[in-house]
């Protein structure tokens, strides 16, 4: 068994105050739900704290000292986030979350460019946030949806890709699926989508936290992600958009800060990215997002990815013996092809019951449809339990998961 005790992980764990908490039953907190939201290092918590204690002020128009400091910190965070995915600062729009980033594209680009009879291509594994906005756009525009299928192992089936792309105005696809952790082969899909003339939107909510991301190498037009899943605060996300497309795109939300000149009946707009940020933004949140990016860069995304592969491999090995009790692990089950996510079911025990029993041991996992109801239906699963890993998880966490699953099996007399 590849059990490891990486001193780097212990050092990382010490940076996350919540991991030193215990539950009301006195159990060590075993946090295995980072795909839902990640925990936050002290550096991020303190960035927020310092902002509010020392230089909280509205940005962009303030003449005074703390306003200048806040503006600089906000725009510096933008540059950090942009560079993290290899975009330029003026290609990076702050949003509330990945969901809003996708909605922004669906409303602003979609309403201007998708018309009756056009097709929109998605995959069968999308999160509701990368499905419902396109359903609503399709409805508004009279367009139709198509789906790249997944096979029973949760991998995308590309056999019909060119036919599916024919007549497509846009492709929107998760970089990493959140239920099975499937990494989409974007290096194959995107060139073909571009050859077919489709706009390419990537839902990077589960990828940006876990993989090195390079929007230039990917050659996508938009890339959406959320701070809260990558060590940052809640309430802030990002949309990378190719400069020329952002420039041509009409605004979405409107109001203060995104304008150039306003008359009672006519308005001209600011340049991107500000054109797409209406009203007072999540200033503290953006600054905290910047601190999260710095923390991730300090750790190194390459190390992080290796760590997650290793821990996934360890978990798969440790879980294997439970198969005789009826444990089924879904998805590709190959750490090279997944993003630190394991979905499973334990015999006839419902995933919610599994999660409730694990909770009594301090083990936090997610159970249900993971905002991918259509995928669940397609796979014939009512619900799954999902454990997801991040840089602060160690082998003890996996051991606690396994022990608690064994307990669930005992309770349910498996």
């Amino acid at each position, binding site marked *: 068994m590849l059990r490891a005790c990486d001193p780097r992980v212990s050092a990382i764990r010490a940076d996350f105050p919540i991991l030193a908490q215990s539950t009301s039953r006195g159990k060590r907190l075993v946090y295995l739900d980072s795909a839902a939201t990640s925990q936050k290092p002290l550096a991020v918590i303190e960035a927020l704290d310092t902002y509010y204690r020392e230089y909280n002020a509205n940005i962009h128009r303030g003449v005074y000292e703390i306003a200048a400091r806040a503006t600089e910190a906000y725009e510096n965070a933008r540059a950090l986030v942009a560079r993290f995915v290899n975009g330029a600062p003026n290609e990076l729009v702050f949003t509330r979350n990945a969901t809003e980033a996708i909605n922004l594209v669906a409303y602003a680009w979609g309403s201007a460019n998708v018309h009756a009879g056009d097709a929109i291509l998605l995959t069968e594994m999308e999160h509701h946030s990368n499905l419902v906005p396109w359903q609503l756009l399709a409805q508004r525009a009279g367009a139709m949806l198509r789906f790249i299928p997944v096979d029973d192992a949760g991998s995308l089936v590309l056999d019909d890709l060119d036919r599916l792309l024919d007549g497509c105005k846009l492709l929107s696809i998760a970089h990493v699926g959140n239920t099975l952790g499937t990494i989409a082969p974007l290096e194959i899909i995107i060139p073909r989508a571009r050859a077919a003339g489709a706009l390419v939107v990537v839902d990077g909510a589960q990828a940006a936290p876990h993989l090195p991301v390079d929007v230039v190498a990917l050659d996508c037009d938009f890339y959406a992600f959320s701070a809260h899943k990558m060590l940052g605060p809640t309430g802030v996300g990002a949309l990378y958009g190719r400069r020329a497309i952002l420039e041509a795109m009409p605004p979405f939300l409107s109001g203060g800060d995104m304008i150039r000149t306003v008359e009672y009946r006519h308005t001209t707009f600011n340049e991107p990215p500000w054109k797409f940020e209406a009203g007072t933004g999540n200033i503290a949140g953006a600054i905290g997002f910047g601190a999260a990016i710095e923390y991730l860069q300090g750790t190194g995304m390459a190390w992080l990815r290796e760590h997650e592969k290793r821990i996934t491999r360890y978990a798969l090995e440790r879980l294997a013996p439970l198969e005789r009790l009826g444990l089924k692990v879904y998805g590709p089950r190959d750490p090279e092809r997944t993003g630190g996510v394991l979905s499973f079911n334990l015999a*006839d*025990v*419902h*995933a*919610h*019951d599994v999660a*409730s*029993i694990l*909770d*009594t041991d301090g083990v936090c996992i997610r*159970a*249900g*449809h993971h905002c991918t*109801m259509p995928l*669940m239906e397609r796979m014939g699963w*009512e*619900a799954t339990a999902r454990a997801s890993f991040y840089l602060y998880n160690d082998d003890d966490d996996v051991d606690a998961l396994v022990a608690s699953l064994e*307990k669930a099996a005992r*309770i*349910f*007399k498996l």
Partner: protein
Amino acid sequence: MDDFYRDYILEHYRNPHHFGHLEAPTVTAEDLNPLCGDRIRMDLLVDRNGTVQDVRFSGKGCAISQASASMLTDSVVGMKLEDVAKLSKDAVLENVGIGISPTRMKCAMLGLRVLKSAAIGSLAAWPDEE
């Protein structure tokens, strides 16, 4: 919460009472808990006096929702519809015992919600959860 999963709960979960459909129900209601996807349907056969003669439930979901629904069906036969409509969450909690965490309370109450919906003939508001 682990004390919740006692033998009789598991027994109801694995061998639910009154499971299935009625051939000619007087009323039927169905609902889901959007948070977890649990679904329950209740078929009632009611005589002209408004007394429940028979009941069947069907559904999918966790032990909490399925066992609570199963146990409810045991107590509903012979009840007046108006009393069914007035059932409180205590009726469920007495059945399932203590130890349900707040996050799972909606699961425990799903059967009750559907049963009361059936009883009042239309979807009721969520039972009060205080």
